């Protein structure tokens, strides 16, 4: 029976989810809001609902209004995407009370994994190694300092309820710790509705490696191997690869980290798509960071190398259906996939640069997938995340994938706003990255952004003018 599935999100992930909903024969229901009257995801939705409000607090974070619309519109199930209410236990519980299916894990898993302190404790109990630090939420800057002095600087201040690099700061000294404490609390409160903060050991030269989990409601928990997401700026990922070039051919290590992730998923009776994030040191020792109890931005690279549709399977799991596969042995790695996050930001300063898209074009290659939400005339608003698209390339091996990324970046044309495309172009020619030798310090140490050319050639200026002239001639035709 066809279900009415509400997508509580916008942008490229709302499009991705709507496609999966319809592929499974269900009805995709989407929102438009007063500050986004023409959201591109509605093209992929069958039913359009008005979510009133001019900012995220009034709209995508507004449980009351969303629950009201759910009741009024006979919604059977809700997919939260990522961000917004995707990891909000309260929302999941309220849906449960209303008899509506939450397309995500059980609320116990969200609650436990959503709290950094508790998740760390549960990981320890399940035999999963964790980074040394506070055992739970810390009361104030003083307590933070005490712990920091115990485990030694540098330390990391993090929102208890956070994720995606928001509400996170490195502190190299007692001074910095003191200065950042309140800022992290504020960001935590405004971004996640919870001001709780914790402190932990900051690992030098680390790799960010995460394991994709997919599980059903019958107790079957599988992993879909790892992703490496060490290329980050401001603690946010910009390039992800699967499999990890740092793990490389070390299949024993791959097996170990994937099995460790499964252990934690089992400990919380995990029953959906989720990701266990680890930090891995230069010596290949790894520690549990957090578990994201949602579909992640970078899920496509795992889909590409395993051939498994994670979003469709997440929906099937939530509806109590069988997954598309029955055993771990059916899930294997084939080839290598890389994702470039295309963000509306200055390629040098990496600061967000919202605006209106004046020109948009790209080419398709064998092995390419481009999940995006842009069209000419689309306005990138400061209200939302600057990530506007994900360029994903798969090749039979890493160097083939890189060859394909280079070619597709060459033809990716977005004008009117600044994007980080020129930065990606530099990174994919930079020797350390090309050799697969990079840590999470890549951007700050190698500084590829310094090689971004900011000025156009004179002939390019002429070309722009001719493009505008041609447009003028088209209009008068």
């Amino acid at each position: 029976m066809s279900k009415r599935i509400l997508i509580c999100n916008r942008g490229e992930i709302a499009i991705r989810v709507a496609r999966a909903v319809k592929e499974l024969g269900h009805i995709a229901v989407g929102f438009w809001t007063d500050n986004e009257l023409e959201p591109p995801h509605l093209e992929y939705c069958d039913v359009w609902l008005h979510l009133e409000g001019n900012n995220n607090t009034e709209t995508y974070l507004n449980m009351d209004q969303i629950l009201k619309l759910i009741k009024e519109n006979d919604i059977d199930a809700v997919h939260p995407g990522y961000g917004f209410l995707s990891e909000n236990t309260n929302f999941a519980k309220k849906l449960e009370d209303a008899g509506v299916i939450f397309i995500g894990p059980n609320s116990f898993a969200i609650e436990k994994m959503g709290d950094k302190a508790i998740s760390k404790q549960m990981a320890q109990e399940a035999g999963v190694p964790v980074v040394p630090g506070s055992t739970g939420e810390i009361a104030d800057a003083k307590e933070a300092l005490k712990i920091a002095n115990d485990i030694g600087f540098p330390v990391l201040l993090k929102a208890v309820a956070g994720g995606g690099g928001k509400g996170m700061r490195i502190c190299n000294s007692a001074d910095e710790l003191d200065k950042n404490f309140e800022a992290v609390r504020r960001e935590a409160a405004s971004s996640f509705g919870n001001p709780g903060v914790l402190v932990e050991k900051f690992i030098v030269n680390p790799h960010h490696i995460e394991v994709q989990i997919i599980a059903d409601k019958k107790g079957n928990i599988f992993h879909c191997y790892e992703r490496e997401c060490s290329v980050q700026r401001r603690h946010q990922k910009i390039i992800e690869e699967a499999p990890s070039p740092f793990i490389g051919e070390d299949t024993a290590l791959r097996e170990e980290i994937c099995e460790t992730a499964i252990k934690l998923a089992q400990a919380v009776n995990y029953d959906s798509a989720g990701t266990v994030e680890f930090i891995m040191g230069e010596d290949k020792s790894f520690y549990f960071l957090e578990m994201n109890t949602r579909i992640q931005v970078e899920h496509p690279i795992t889909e590409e190398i395993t051939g498994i549709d994670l979003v469709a399977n997440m929906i099937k799991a939530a509806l109590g259906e069988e997954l598309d596969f029955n055993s771990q042995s059916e899930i294997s790695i084939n080839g290598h996939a890389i994702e470039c996050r295309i963000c509306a930001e200055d390629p040098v300063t990496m600061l967000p640069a919202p605006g209106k898209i004046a020109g948009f074009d790209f080419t398709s290659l064998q092995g390419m997938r481009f999940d995006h939400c842009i069209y000419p005339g689309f306005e990138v608003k400061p209200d939302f995340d600057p990530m506007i698209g994900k360029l994903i390339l798969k090749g039979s091996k890493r160097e083939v994938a890189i060859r394909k990324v280079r070619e597709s970046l060459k033809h990716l044309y977005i004008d009117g706003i600044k994007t980080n495309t020129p930065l990606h172009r530099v990174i994919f020619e930079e020797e350390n990255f090309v050799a697969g030798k990079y840590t999470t310090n890549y951007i700050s140490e190698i500084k590829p952004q310094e090689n971004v050319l900011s000025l156009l050639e004179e002939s390019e200026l002429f070309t722009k003018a001719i493009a505008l002239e041609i447009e003028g001639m088209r209009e008068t035709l």
Partner: protein
Amino acid sequence: MRYYIINSEGREVSFDLSYVRESESKSKVFRVSHAEKPKEYYVKEMAGKAFISEDEKTWSKLPRLYSKKGLVNINETLNVYRGFKPSGLKGVKAGNLVTEMPGKVIKVMSAEGAIVNEGDTLLILEAMKMENEIKAGVSGVVKAVHVSEGQVLESGSLMIEIEE
């Protein structure tokens, strides 16, 4: 038509661009008059797309620019003005704190008359869900604070002026 292309630092290139004729193979020929000798470009429309060439043999796609106004922002560091040159374009002084993007003032950490050192945080601006510390670029005295907490700002707004 005269074109003015002005980058974010106020540097300007201007040249004349005109449609000259249709070539034998039905390309549109444009002439750019700039500096030395004029340069010709061929443009062909094909399959709903436009292509540009200097020799009618090697072509590259000329992506569409969607603009109705004769003005278009290119990659936000360049503005292209078609046919007219706007007035009032200039850079800002080092002591003037101007927003680089639209945002909301979270906290004002300085006041008129305060003595500030280069690098001091004067203001916290939230934009795209990030808190950004806006720091003094020079040492001096705060001459004026034009914003208040909670205020929503457009890109390019003058927030604080510092007298060196």
